[in-house]
């Protein structure tokens, strides 16, 4: 099945079996390996991407439903090699340790800040409740998102 969609602002077309997961299309067909698989069942959120403005688990989305959508992945956050405010805050706060949950966390955080530019700590926790982290205890991730909210303008919605 041929699917054309927009990934990180670029129009792309793939030819893939209809029930192939969006996660696998990103990683294999488009070689965008930033989005990760942690569980294959929508529990860990490592595969989170933003589709048509909403954050979803790409391991649960079949490619046949992605015709004409816009997708934002972690690779689309930085511009010209420069980290966006969230990535910068993560770096400064020490919010990434092993880094495997980080792409998903950034995407969920980006989705939150796109609609709520001044979230409370509780709202941040709610927004990342579908992203499991085993390294950090979440503390510095929440700190980083708080910091990014204070210092940034949200980038245009995907």
């Amino acid at each position, binding site marked *: *099945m041929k699917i054309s969609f927009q990934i990180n602002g670029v129009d792309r077309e793939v030819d893939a*079996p*209809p*029930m192939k*997961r969006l996660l696998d299309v990103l990683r294999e067909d488009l070689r965008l390996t930033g989005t990760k698989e942690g569980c*294959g*069942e*929508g*529990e860990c*959120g490592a595969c*989170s991407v933003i589709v048509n403005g*909403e*954050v*979803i*688990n790409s*391991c*649960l*989305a*079949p490619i*046949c*439903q992605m015709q004409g959508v816009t997708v934002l992945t972690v690779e689309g956050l930085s511009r010209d090699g420069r980290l966006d405010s969230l990535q910068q805050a993560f770096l400064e706060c020490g919010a990434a340790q092993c880094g495997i949950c980080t792409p998903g966390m950034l995407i*969920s955080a980006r*989705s939150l800040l796109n609609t709520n530019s001044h979230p409370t700590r509780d709202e941040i926790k*709610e*927004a990342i*409740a*579908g*992203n*499991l982290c085993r390294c950090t205890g979440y503390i510095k991730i929440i700190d980083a998102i708080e910091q990014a909210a204070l210092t940034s303008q949200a980038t245009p919605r995907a």
Partner: protein
Amino acid sequence: MIYAPTAVAPTSLDEVYELLSERGGRAKIIAGGTDLMVALNAESLNAKEFIDIWRLNELRGIDDEGETIRIGALTTYTQLIKSPLILSSVPALVEASRTIGAIQIQNRGTIGGNIVNASPAGDSLPVLAAFDAEVEIGSIRGVRRIDFNQFYIGYRQTVMDADEILLAIRMRKLNPNEQSFFFKVGTRRAQAISKIVTAVKIGITGAEINFINIALGSVAPTVIRAKLTESLLTNAPLDTTIIERARRTISQEIAPITDVRSTEHYRRTVAGNALAKILRRLM
């Protein structure tokens, strides 16, 4: 030889009906995929053909019908949470939706999916049962409406025929003298399957209970109504004695099991405590 299922995306309900009349027994309907894709990934799903209804906007929409609300099958949990109409008229459904998965799941999971997936632990189901909701099902043979409390006939089994599709769910709005409650105990605070989940709809004047609907999930092969306990409480004055009796009655009325998530004893005990807590709030 290698598993590569096909998918077809009908653009109208009539097309869906046609497809289902041909291949309803074999093809599986897929909406948001939050249940089906898990099974597909785990290779526990046998389907080789899928009917993708994600773009079928005829199944979307929350309609105010005056005394009732009609919720299209493809309404996502996020849409329910954000709907002022749902919040004002069936608030327990918003509460339930908030406890399902996390935001990623809420953006794609649909109420229709929750209903046809027929898990005994489906979190929206007790709300639908407590509200005596009505299921609207369509096929090439026409549309029929079924009382939600007659919809399940066994573990993961519904009354739907292979050529039918769930169109919508219909619920009565809360009247001024009615209240609803939702209570879920999960394995953790998000991304949690319920150990016990309950919804209550109650009509109360002064200190007397006019009626009470108590529905529970995760304590039986399907969502159930606690009829004995409802009987006990109907037309009863709300006081500490009746609350105690209700706690004991519901604990004994249900027959939960011990499984990988919880124990029979815990479920019985907490079902009683949850009901008592809800009733105490009304006193």
